[in-house]
């Protein structure tokens, strides 16, 4: 159990002071957003909103000034993230760039790529995509088949990536691929990360429409794409370790439990406090919100102290998805046959009920996460 332990974290006064500033900004910026628009959250792709956050200094908040960062604390950043998500701000355009691409480039290419790319991310101008999964690969990342062959001054890349969110808007894709063969005893060997310019010749981005008919993710085809040597991120052959470190950043943030919040809020406005079914059902969810917030914040505190909370982060994502997916089912239970067609509740419920399956798939499926947790418990 100890590998799963999360220590509580208290926000300091500086972080709390920032909260009021963010709330005032969002109250103004989002005042014309309907609940249904707010429900999009992470898949709300609005580059103008992202640029406004950059102007406020709320992108790359913790990064060093030499990369355009603002050198603020991880907890100040946490407050901004949770306020954006709780309010239903359209954060999809910059989310992966700010969460994982920036830190990855700063860590693994501090002298070459980070000075070129990261300042644009902090301004909200440079958008990033993550090329991990492939057709027939899914969760088994060591099986990726996209490969790079050495050539004069760089690499020639061939293959394809799938489920690549925002690739149709992004400027670059951080791509996991093979630069060398698997080893007999280690199929994770020979993997590397390359930065690919999505405007380069040979790159084709095709939309994949999700079951709601919306365009968020894509298939990206790479045909004889030239990538210069400078665009190798970190060490050749170290791709697995780099991706694993990157995924840990992906699993514990407030986006892992807040995705269905607009539906929860719509239910609160329709609920009857005298109806015990309403109070108990919504109260159970309130308790889980309170606890997941503390868990997510606790992991942020552990990251801030330089600890490695890979397993606690995995617990947050698994428990968070349970909450996010419980909310549409509670809405069905309480309001299934008694809501006004076209009402806010109806519209938000329509969107989130159909979005919910993705919450336990993206960023590591439930089964993969629980396998990691089981390892932390000493099983296998």
């Amino acid at each position: 159990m100890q590998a799963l332990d999360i220590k509580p974290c208290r926000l300091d006064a500086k972080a709390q002071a920032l909260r009021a500033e963010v709330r005032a900004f969002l109250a103004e910026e989002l005042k014309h957003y309907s609940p249904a628009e707010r429900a999009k959250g992470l898949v709300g792709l609005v580059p103008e909103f992202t640029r406004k956050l950059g102007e406020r200094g709320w992108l790359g908040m913790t990064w060093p000034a030499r990369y355009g960062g603002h050198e603020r604390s991880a907890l100040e950043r946490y407050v901004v993230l949770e306020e954006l998500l709780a309010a239903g701000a359209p954060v999809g355009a910059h989310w992966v760039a700010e969460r994982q691409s920036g830190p990855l480039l700063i860590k693994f290419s501090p002298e070459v790529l980070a000075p070129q790319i990261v300042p644009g991310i902090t301004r909200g101008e440079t958008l990033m995509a993550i090329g991990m999964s492939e057709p027939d690969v899914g969760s088994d990342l060591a099986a990726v088949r996209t490969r790079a062959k050495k050539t004069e001054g760089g690499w020639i890349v061939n293959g394809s990536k799938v489920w690549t969110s925002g690739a149709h808007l992004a400027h670059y894709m951080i791509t996991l691929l093979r630069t060398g063969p698997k080893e007999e005893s280690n199929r994770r060997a020979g993997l590397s990360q390359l930065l690919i310019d999505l405007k380069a010749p040979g790159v084709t981005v095709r939309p994949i429409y999700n079951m709601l008919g919306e365009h968020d993710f894509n298939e990206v085809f790479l045909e004889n794409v030239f990538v210069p040597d400078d665009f190798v991120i970190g060490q050749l052959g170290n791709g697995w370790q780099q991706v694993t470190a990157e995924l840990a950043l992906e699993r514990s943030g407030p986006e892992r439990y807040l995705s269905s919040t607009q539906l929860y809020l719509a239910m609160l406005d329709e609920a009857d406090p005298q109806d015990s079914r309403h109070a108990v059902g919504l109260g159970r969810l309130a308790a889980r919100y309170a606890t997941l917030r503390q868990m997510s914040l606790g992991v942020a505190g552990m990251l801030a102290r330089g600890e490695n909370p890979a397993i606690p982060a995995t617990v947050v994502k698994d428990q968070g998805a349970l909450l996010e997916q419980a909310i549409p089912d509670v809405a069905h239970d309480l309001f299934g046959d008694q809501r006004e067609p076209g009402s806010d509740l109806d519209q938000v419920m329509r969107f989130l009920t159909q979005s919910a399956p993705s919450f336990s798939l993206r960023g590591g499926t439930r089964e993969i996460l629980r396998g990691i947790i089981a390892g932390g418990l000493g099983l296998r």
Partner: protein
Amino acid sequence: MNTAINYQGADDGTPSDLQTVIADSVERLFAKHVTRELLERFDAGHRADALWQQVVDNGLPGALVPESAGGSGANWLDASPVLRAIGYWQAPLPLAETMLAAALLAHAGMEVPEGSITLIQAGRLGDLRLDQEGGHLEGRAVNVPWARTCRWAVVADGQRLALVDLRQAAVTLAAGSNFADEERDTLVFANSSSQATGHLQLADLPEPIWHLGALVRACTLVGTLEAAVDKAVLYANERVQFGKPIGKQQVLQQYLAQMAGATGAARMAVQVALRSASDLFLGAAGNHSTLAFDIAVAKVCAGEAATLAASVAHQVHGAIGFTHEHTLHFATRRLWSWRDEFGSDAHWAKVLGKAAIAAGSEGFWVGLTDRSL
């Protein structure tokens, strides 16, 4: 991976030295003495008197009492390893109740008597009331923990507190028990007199024993949840079926991971509530304490985790876990009992749900971040 990133302002929640000392001593004591034999003898109707004496010799009942009043002066976080250990080892003693009762008496400036003390919140689980001066009690209280064992009861009615000698003629007792065979008795007070009265200064907890009793049960539940996880993981790694340990089966790994995740959530909720309780009792909570909210959250999470964990633990253990011989039932019978006591998860969920509905879409997030719903 973020060595390049600027980190400040993180509160690491490291245990205090006092908490570590308390944890070490209670773990040593219970690991040695709360044996299968002791628990079997307890289930057969024998009180664990020798263990109680050792607990007293270690000063545990007075852990939450200030040093000036003869206790250890531990705050709630410091003393929490005792509550966790009661659950982890399933120690069959009125220790959690006595610790809380003594803390309340000391807080009200009253003397803490020798011996074990039980707890009653007037108006909950019966119709017992204190009269205006607190000198007399009238009415019935059900599911009173350890009433047969305890000489004393502490009764709260609002912020008024009374210490009552249960061995007086005007108190009658009918024995009962929870699923774990722990005493849960019915007491009838017929104009019974109290031996001392006082006032609490815990205005943020309108029903202090009901709230703090829920916190204590949530703490002991977390201890028992951790024991259930440990037992299930141990068994899954040892038990071989179809040529390999059953813990290698993905389906069991999935169950156990979910059980451990729910346990981790309950532990976090309890840690947060303990920190608030420490602040409130130290007078450090300021104008408003988040404790009532934090306790409701903790009891919901601990109760829900108990439901899941008892089910998974038994499924993993198979038939052997359903035998009297195996020790699993000492844990699971307590999970099923304690999730009900001092308000079930549904009870506290209803409290939270009403507050959330009242806050509405405008106020919910503010209430959640302030923990003031």
